């Protein structure tokens, strides 16, 4: 039988080749959507940028100029005196050596804490994601539960533990505390990342005869730069900005920079030197800021990689 339906050819229905719209649809620069979108972005940017602007401007002014009261005005006479004073001469309680010594304290705390916590947590996450040993789920549950216990609860017990170990008031004690407290979130981060990598890759490596460390170092580690970047950023900023543990577990000689900053700002002898306070604050914040600027792109990629399977 022959099909009696006829199918119209394209040219029969569409004859109009000229005049009608053709090619990409034109976009208006000042559409309502664009005004709203960029307006919002602009406002948020200003909201975040203004405090930074005030800090930078104030830190570059002399005290007489500050007393005029206009905090938004740019400095008439730029001076770097407050920065030098904050770094080398500002008084934190009794000694007046500025932030310099404490800066190095913070470096000595941050670097070993970051390295140690990331090494341990990445191996933890790898073992939890790939090897599924007996009790792995229980171990993981306990670890995650640990992340929800308020720090204040553990402050005093840890003081006692460090005292018994002879590490109280010492930098190494604080390094241990930071490493332990970084564990839950970092382990979760690494576990999820390794779990998102194809399982067959791990199986293939086992068939190829690679062991626990062989797979970790030669197969997984080279694929994990984004997540290590995320971990480094989280840890550097977290530990550098920490105040509570720093003030509790170290002594006046080994205070981290944040504690010293607090002391500078809170020390009142005569007039409050706003410009020095601002300079000191910016100096303290410089390390996390640099980290963000340098690794921003990798950071975003790593967060995305950890979140989406693929």
């Amino acid at each position, binding site marked *: 039988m022959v099909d009696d339906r006829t199918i119209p050819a394209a040219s029969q229905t569409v004859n109009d080749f000229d005049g009608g719209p053709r090619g990409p649809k034109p976009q208006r620069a000042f559409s309502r959507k664009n005004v709203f979108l960029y307006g919002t972005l602009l406002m948020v940017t200003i909201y975040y940028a203004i405090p930074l602007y005030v800090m930078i401007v104030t830190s570059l002014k002399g005290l007489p100029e500050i007393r005029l009261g206009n905090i938004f005005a740019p400095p008439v006479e730029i001076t770097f005196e407050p920065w030098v004073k904050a770094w080398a001469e500002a008084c934190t309680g009794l000694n007046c050596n500025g932030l310099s010594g404490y800066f190095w304290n913070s470096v000595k705390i941050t670097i070993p804490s970051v390295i140690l916590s990331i090494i341990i947590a990445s191996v933890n996450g790898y073992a939890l994601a790939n090897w599924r040993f007996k009790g792995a789920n229980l171990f993981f549950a306990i670890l995650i539960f640990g992340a929800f216990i308020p720090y204040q609860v553990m402050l005093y017990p840890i003081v006692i533990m460090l005292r018994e170990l002879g590490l109280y008031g010492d930098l190494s004690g604080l390094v241990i505390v930071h490493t332990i407290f970084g564990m839950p979130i970092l382990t979760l981060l690494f576990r999820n990342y390794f779990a998102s990598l194809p399982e*067959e890759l791990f*199986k293939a490596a086992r*068939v190829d005869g690679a062991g626990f460390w062989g797979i970790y170092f030669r197969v997984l580690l080279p694929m994990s730069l984004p997540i290590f970047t995320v971990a480094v950023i989280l840890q550097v900023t977290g530990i550098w900005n920490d105040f509570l543990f720093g003030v509790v577990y170290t002594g006046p000689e080994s205070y981290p920079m944040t504690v010293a900053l607090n002391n500078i700002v809170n020390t009142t002898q005569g007039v409050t030197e706003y410009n020095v306070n601002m300079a000191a604050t910016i100096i303290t914040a410089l390390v996390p800021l640099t980290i963000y600027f340098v690794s921003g792109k990798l950071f975003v990629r790593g967060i995305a990689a950890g979140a989406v399977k693929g």
Partner: protein
Amino acid sequence: MESSITIRDLELSFGAVEVLKNLNLDIGQGEFLVLLGSSGCGKSTLLNCIAGLLDVTDGQIFIQGRNVTWEEPSDRGIGMVFQSYALYPQMTVEGNLSFGLKNAGFSKSEIAERIDRAAKVLQIEPLLKRKPGALSGGQRQRVAIGRALVRDVDVFLFDEPLSNLDAKLRTDLRAEIKELHKRLRNTMIYVTHDQIEAMTLADRIAIMRDGKILQLASPKEIYNRPASKYVAEFIGSPSMNFFDGKIGENGQSFACDAGTFSLNGYQFGEGGAQDGTAWLGIRPEHIAVGTEAKTMPIQLEASVQHVEPLGSDTLVRVLIGDRRLWVRIDGQSEVADGDALNIGFDPAMANIFDKTSETRL
């Protein structure tokens, strides 16, 4: 035939879930065995057990006569090819091929020689310095096969290796795997849910369901004499047509709502003929139409409900009363919806399954 892999009383459970149940299997030296089943039937799990990637709950696994139940995957003399290729992305093709050999402690010259040989066999010599990201799907899978090849293993395990490839490439690579098997004569176990892959590649097919092997036989045997209704439905597309009825007169006739068919010529299995309720199954390609139908022992009148031209042949869905049947006819025949159609078949080509046990009679 000496056996290459022997599986004895294999059981595997995850908690309370039994995935593999008391499974026994003998695979001959140089045999190409396909594990076929729908997803969740335990076929990949079985393969992972043989590879040593999963610990078994009970039972034993022998490869080349050696009990490997507690051995590491790398010590079992197996190579495995995965669905997602599972190539190490940061290594070149050469690095991928040499990874296993380095772990096994081979000398540099030995490694180079083996890579050279495998690359020639698989025609991937120009790709050796590239990274997997710069390869096409087919090339990647070839490298993955190469990774098993360089290790000079006794047994190749394939876990749905072609499922990620497009249709054309799949056909090509399927033929290549068959070719490779002919050349190497290694034992190969191949997991798939694609019945065409199973039929074309296998020396024997093991059809699995719920952690058990339902039938283990040659592709022809499985197609012609499926052991159960499930197997009959699983193999063949469109699947077998069934009449729901009753066997009578000591296996001489089958009565159903479409009429009473003589079973003269039907070969009953070992159990012999049994009267009682049953399914009679006939494949779409074993139903004749038109003048040819007139020569068949069983003849029926049907009307055409729906036509699907495939080019080489045409699938026709016909109605007998309100029973639907698929019929496969020549691609050149002219059939239209609503036509009356004579159909017929030979009971020798049919399969009868007991209604309760669903096994072939």
